[in-house]
């Protein structure tokens, strides 16, 4: 639904807008090289070191500071693995390197969700049909009401509760995402048809559980309960952080959701326009951007999902300038402000009219 104040582009303007963004894309593609390869390898090296450090410190979890340090290092490792590495590598941002370890179609991440399911629900559905209510399953994840365009019913009174649960168990929410359980409940499909997917999820969740909740605790002997608690805490920290940054990408005040009718016969330029209006950036320092997987540059990511994420900060300057010339909004703000407005929206949409 467009707001009355949403600036519209004529088809010609949208075409010109698209051509300017295409030029940015071409420019970056032509410039890809050692700098990008070094960047992602540095991040991976940092993540693997944090992982080893975290697991190592947790062996000494009977010393409280070691437990805390272990949880911190392991949380950071999981955050980097899922966000700056996994999410971006799986987009194919580094496919041009021709490195099997960094190939978008093969990469597997430290997360309960099988990478193949993610590539379908995220890379294909979410990035193609961004913010189109009824098509983009990231609008509410089949659980929440995140747009006035979703008709209200009694179930949505629990909107804030569901959101809190989703945040806490986010990796499992993501793992189940591609199953479309809401469609199973609505009778549009059956679990039987999803048998292969269920098996893949079971396998991945099993491996992750075995590692975090059985093997590492058992190996640490008497500290097993502390290691188990430490690993659970690291997973929780990653879940909360991922939920927070991801929900700031498309739901803060000012972001637009669309209906299917509004997006039929969309041109290339209009697709860019929808990606821009449906996304919001977070402002912050360099470390903050890296820890958010550069999803803090959600606008740039949605315009160019397969460009290496560390380029987004550089591109953002040009994108902002183009938006200014076309009179288009560029939604950006600090985490506190953006997440605050997301929380208010979740609460507001629990009620029928969306009025608090």
């Amino acid at each position, binding site marked *: 639904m467009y707001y009355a104040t949403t600036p519209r582009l004529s088809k010609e303007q949208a075409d010109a807008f698209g051509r300017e963004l295409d030029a940015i894309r071409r420019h970056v593609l032509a410039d890809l*090289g050692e700098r990008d*390869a070094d960047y992602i390898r540095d991040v991976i090296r940092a993540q*693997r070191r944090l992982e080893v450090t975290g697991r190592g410190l947790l062996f000494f979890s009977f010393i409280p500071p070691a437990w805390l340090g272990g949880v911190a290092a392991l949380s950071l490792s999981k955050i980097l693995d899922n966000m700056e590495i996994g999410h971006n590598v799986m987009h*194919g941002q580094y496919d*041009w390197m*021709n490195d099997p370890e960094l190939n978008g179609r093969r990469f597997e991440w430290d997360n309960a969700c099988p990478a193949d399911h993610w590539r379908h629900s995220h890379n294909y559905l979410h990035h193609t049909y961004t913010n189109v209510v009824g098509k983009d399953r990231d609008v509410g994840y089949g659980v929440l009401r995140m747009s006035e365009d979703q008709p209200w019913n009694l179930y949505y009174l629990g909107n804030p509760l569901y959101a809190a649960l989703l945040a806490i168990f986010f990796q499992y929410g993501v793992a189940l995402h591609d199953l479309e359980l809401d469609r199973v409940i609505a009778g549009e499909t059956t679990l039987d048809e999803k048998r292969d997917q269920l098996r893949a999820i079971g396998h991945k969740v099993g491996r992750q559980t075995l590692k975090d909740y059985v093997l*590492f605790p058992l190996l640490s002997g008497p500290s097993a309960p502390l290691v188990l608690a430490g690993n659970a805490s690291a997973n929780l920290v990653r879940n909360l952080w991922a939920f927070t940054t991801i929900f700031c990408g498309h739901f803060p005040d000012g972001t637009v959701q669309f209906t299917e009718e509004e997006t039929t016969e969309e041109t290339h330029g209009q697709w860019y326009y929808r990606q821009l209006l449906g996304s919001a950036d977070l402002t912050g320092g360099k470390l903050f951007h890296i820890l958010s997987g550069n999803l803090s540059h959600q606008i740039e990511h949605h315009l160019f999902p397969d460009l290496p994420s560390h380029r987004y900060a550089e591109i953002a300057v040009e994108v902002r300038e183009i938006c200014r010339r076309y009179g288009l909004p560029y939604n950006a703000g600090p985490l506190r402000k953006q997440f605050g407005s997301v929380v208010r929206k979740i609460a507001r949409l629990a009620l029928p009219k969306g009025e608090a």
Partner: protein
Amino acid sequence: MMLPGLPTPLAPLRSPARRLLRSGLLEALAAPHGIDRYLELVHPTRSLRDPLAELIAVRRQTVDSVTMTLRPSDGWHGFRAGQFIRLTIEIAGVLETRCYSLACGEQADGQVEITVKAHPAGKVSRYLNEHARPGMVVGMSAADGDFVLPRERPERLLLISSGSGITPVMSMLRTLCAEDHGGTVTFLHYARTGEDVVYRRELAAIAARHPNVRIVLVHTREATAGRLAGHISRAHLRRIGADHRRAHTYVCGAPGLIAWVRATWAEDGIEQLLHVESFLPPSFTLGDAGAEGSVDFARSGERVLSDGGLLLEQAERAGLCPQFGCRMGICRICTCRKTAGSVRNVLSGEISGAEEEDIQICVSVPVGDVELAL
């Protein structure tokens, strides 16, 4: 043949350590990334799965070639004379893989040799000629290829090569000499000038030491009295007294040389005695069939109208980045699942059935509609 006194970063991990590293427990703990991704934090060449090699010597025998001695990491299972390895290096962030024939004899233990000639348009060959230095770590596959001497060495051998195609037959020659093979070996090599012959000094030494080995160097662009000149011909074969009808012949070199040998041996009805190694990009002419139909890249949801060209190139034009290596049908890195339709292999000319199978997209063109799992 480990050189004493050198540091041995690639020394094999002791076997109990290795067993532990290979155990399912460690893989489960390192999931989903695998134990190698942690080993490389300790040392860049520590690896259980990725075969690597370290350059231990670099020398230049001609102005436009570089000869490198490599020490493979543990897990190297040796090779047969004539085989090639796939070498992988990173240039400007991109991993590039090329096939190179080994030039050393089979007796070389723990270190191998390749010679790479710089081609004007060759990204990797030029890079290696400019940047190869001892200490450099490269990816190196196990040896591969059917261009090998039979285990029972033939009594008469004719080895023909041109330019950088000398390497696999050099490996054969060195192997035979080290074995004190008593049979007749004729080594016929074509180069532009004497300066362009890579192993010239060693060849002279071999000829002096082994009376059963006849070495003939032909300069194609330089006429010297008493020496053969120009390209291969029946006259050359007669002049060197190589009884090619009775010898096992191994050929590696320029397309023109290979084409001539193939045609001549076919004329004489002795193709069964001929073995050819050819590292050539596929060249082919488009048939009428194939230029119609569509190519579906099922995983990425892209679909293009076929232009009849190589599937790898069509995929790249559609904006996809499929894995690739040699782009000439050798290394199989680009191998991908064909889920429907028929393709023609441009190297063999064979047209596949329509069933699901793995194909090499760098040397396959569609015949009608094709669907790939890309």
